[in-house]
């Protein structure tokens, strides 16, 4: 059995670990609130944008100036954008992104002979995948340190330009979509070329809009914005998922530390009891020897 002192040291170290995980959980919970607020504010924007875009779907196929966004080319070079976190200790969050990325590259792109480049937003996936993927870029890895619409839009613009310049024929995103704190859904989504869903709702379809200055001009403005919004939304989703996953992971860690503490305290008391019993035995037998 472990000595009293050993058990005491373990108890105090477990206690301090528990304090840390508890603090991390609280920090994550506060951040999560902010992150979900950001998503909630973002949602009406992207919904409205999609519905306007849906209204213009038929015009979009005829407008030359936005053709580059919709153009399907034979996919020879693809860009995979991987959204992970900058820090660890967030459960399976990064592992699932990495797994999905591997799957996409090895099972989808490789058999077709597609040349894949991977770009990382967030550090963790890069740490693991840099050994496996030959063609990586880390230019925008720090985007999560300042997650403003402006920054993300600038990153998206780079992808749009590269796609328009035929550097890539396809751009896909891999990220965790936020469902709730405990659940993230891994998403592999096509960013470019753009897919437009036309409006199904007949009432919406038959509205006779006046277009100023014209459908074409609006599309030129709207389509890139929609693409950027898609990336921004993915970033917000990923960030909320990360904090959610971290909160859950830290909660579990705190609980585990508690269980461990219970066990250690029991062990400590047993050891203490054994020591006392031993001492009494010694005293009693000593006294008996004197009397005898």
């Amino acid at each position, binding site marked *: 059995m472990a000595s009293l002192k050993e058990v005491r040291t373990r108890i105090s170290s477990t206690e301090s670990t528990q304090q840390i995980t508890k603090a991390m959980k609280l920090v994550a919970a506060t951040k999560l609130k902010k992150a979900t607020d950001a998503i909630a504010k973002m949602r009406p924007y992207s919904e409205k944008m999609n519905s306007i875009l849906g209204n213009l779907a038929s015009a979009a196929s005829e407008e030359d100036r936005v053709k580059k966004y919709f153009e399907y080319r034979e996919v020879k070079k693809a860009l995979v954008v991987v959204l992970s976190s900058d820090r660890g200790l967030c459960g399976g969050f990064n592992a699932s992104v990495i797994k999905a990325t591997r799957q996409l590259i090895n099972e989808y792109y490789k058999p077709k002979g597609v040349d894949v480049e991977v770009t990382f937003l967030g550090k963790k996936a890069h740490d693991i995948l840099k050994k496996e993927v030959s063609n990586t870029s880390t230019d925008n890895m720090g985007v999560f340190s300042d997650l403003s619409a402006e920054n993300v839009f600038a990153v998206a613009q780079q992808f749009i330009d590269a796609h328009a310049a035929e550097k890539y024929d396809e751009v896909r995103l891999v990220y965790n979509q936020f469902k709730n704190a405990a659940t993230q859904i891994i998403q592999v989504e096509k960013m470019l070329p753009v897919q437009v869903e036309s409006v199904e709702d007949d009432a919406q379809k038959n509205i006779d809009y006046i*277009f100023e200055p014209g459908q074409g001009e609006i599309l030129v403005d709207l389509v890139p914005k929609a693409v950027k919004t898609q990336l921004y939304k993915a970033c917000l989703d990923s960030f909320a998922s990360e904090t959610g996953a971290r909160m859950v992971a830290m909660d579990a860690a705190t609980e585990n530390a508690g269980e461990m503490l219970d066990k250690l305290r029991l062990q400590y008391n047993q050891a203490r009891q054994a020591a006392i019993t031993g001492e009494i035995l010694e005293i009693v037998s000593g006294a008996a020897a004197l009397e005898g």
Partner: protein
Amino acid sequence: MYLEIITPEKTLFSGEVESAKFPGSAGGFETLNNHAALISSLTEGTLEVKTENGVEKFEINGGIVEVLNNKIIVLA
């Protein structure tokens, strides 16, 4: 009529307005009550909103406006 100005990061304005002036990309225009359905792109400029309590101004960097059934939505 009801006006909402939404950016990706927050809702800048939402509420009843009497009129609103937009910096349209084909020239500025104003919408009053019962304006016909309209979708227009906007350029950089000032968006002037007239409410019961006076005039509010917003600087925008371009965007899209949709007017439908006395509801105006600005995506800035």
